């Protein structure tokens, strides 16, 4: 299988381990990633403040490049990039005039054919294959953290459900993990305020870390470089805010699955985390089969 691939800027720098683990995992699943030729930054949240057209242009140029390369689907691991590309796609979907205007701005034809997929949506298709390839069951209590942009707004992302989403939970269950029910699955981590309003990030991300710890999660699992960086890189500020030292590691979903599939931790970029990835003893295997469980 081949699929288009839009890494976005952070996967090439501060979220390098995300790209490394995405690539390692996809290779293990025989999924070939075709990087969009000459892709550019999606403009993040900054472009839109300056000019809606600029934002639309930056995003659409990537989709147009993907079209030109003959791709139908584009995997976009960064949740922010995913949401931006998906939004641009939706905005132009039923507005041919605007579509033409933007095509003129970027100097490329654009038909709107390419679909944008986030990492969970793609991996969900391979859930059975992943389950079949498990070498080291990931038997931990995990806090599945989806954040904002994977599930909101629902009409843009067209993915899972907006409250208490399940796709990541299902994937991790498939490799032996036990997702905890918790309150912060889709709460905001502070997102783009990482640099400018570190205080806000420490406060919001602090609540997330605290809830995960309180409910005995061994790790927080994410699918977004911004979430990861706020929960990981900003841990000193978080701990300061919470007045407590929390060492709970923050893994990308691709890293957690990669570990379960027996991929080398180095290859998954675990060494690049600021909060060291130290997992406790795995939970004992649960013997009772689900089938006999009667809810009544």
């Amino acid at each position, binding site marked *: 299988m081949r699929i288009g691939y839009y890494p976005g*800027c*952070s996967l*090439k*720098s*501060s*979220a*390098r*381990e995300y790209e490394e683990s995405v690539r390692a995992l996809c290779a293990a699943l025989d999924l070939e990633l075709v990087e969009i030729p*000459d*892709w*550019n*930054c999606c*403009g*993040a*949240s*900054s*472009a*839109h*403040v*300056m*000019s*809606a*057209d*600029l934002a639309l*242009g*930056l995003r659409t*140029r990537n989709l147009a490049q993907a079209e030109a390369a003959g791709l139908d689907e584009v995997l976009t691991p960064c949740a922010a990039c995913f949401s931006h590309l998906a939004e641009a796609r939706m905005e132009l979907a039923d507005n041919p005039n605007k579509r033409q205007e933007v095509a003129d*701005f*970027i*100097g*490329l034809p654009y038909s709107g054919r390419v679909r944008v997929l986030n990492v969970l949506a793609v991996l969900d298709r391979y859930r059975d294959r992943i389950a079949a390839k498990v070498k080291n069951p990931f038997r931990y209590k995990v806090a599945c953290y989806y954040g*904002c*942009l994977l599930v*909101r*707004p*629902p009409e843009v992302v067209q993915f899972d459900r*907006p409250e208490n989403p399940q796709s990541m939970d299902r994937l991790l269950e498939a490799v032996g993990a036990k997702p905890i029910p918790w309150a912060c699955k*889709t*709460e*905001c981590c*502070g*997102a*783009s*305020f990482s*640099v*400018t*309003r570190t205080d*806000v990030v420490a406060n*919001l991300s602090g609540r997330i870390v605290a809830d995960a710890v309180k409910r005995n999660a061994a790790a927080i699992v994410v699918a977004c470089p911004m979430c990861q960086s706020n929960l990981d*890189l900003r841990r000193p500020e978080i701990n300061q805010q919470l007045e407590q030292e929390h060492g709970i590691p923050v893994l990308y979903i691709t890293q957690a699955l990669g570990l379960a599939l027996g991929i080398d931790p180095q290859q998954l970029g675990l*060494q*690049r*985390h*600021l909060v060291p990835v130290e997992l406790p003893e795995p939970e004992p295997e649960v013997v009772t089969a689900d089938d006999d469980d009667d809810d009544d």
Partner: protein
Amino acid sequence: MNRSLENAKKTTSLASQIQAATGIALHHCYQCGKCAAGCPVADTMDLPSCQVLRLLQYESPEFDRQVLQSEAIWLCLSCETCHTRCPQDIGTPKVMNFLRGEAMRLRLAHPRSKDTQAFHHAFLGSVGRHGRLYEIGMLMGYKLRTGHLLKDMALGSKLHEKGKLNLLPHAIEDKAALKRLFKQTLNNPDSKE
């Protein structure tokens, strides 16, 4: 107050501009407060989102100005929680985005927003130059604009240690196309949102 209400020109009010630019009809808001109730930063905001919408509903120059001068519009994280739960399907983050642009254009932006503005400028500057984000370049630009020269220095060196910072920019090939895009869209008078 009454006069300013009468003077409110539907054509120039922020609410009407927002409707024209985004299609969002602010008069659909019936002030249930669900947006503020779920907003992660509502308690930090000087005007919680529902108040921002309420002020805009008056379509008065006085209240419009108060909104543009508020810090709240700079605190919105675009997390879309409010929009997702809004019974009237009002896309508040889009509204906030529009307001930020207007506040900058009219030079009314809240003083504490200058870091954020500087960040956006530094970010776009970097993207405009290289086509992709060059994080060190962007951060340097930001620090120069804000004067926060020493902030996050330790973090920077740690990132470098972990191999997470590129010392040189990765530029795209077709820079000319990008330059054209920036030029056309930033000068496009219709493109205020």
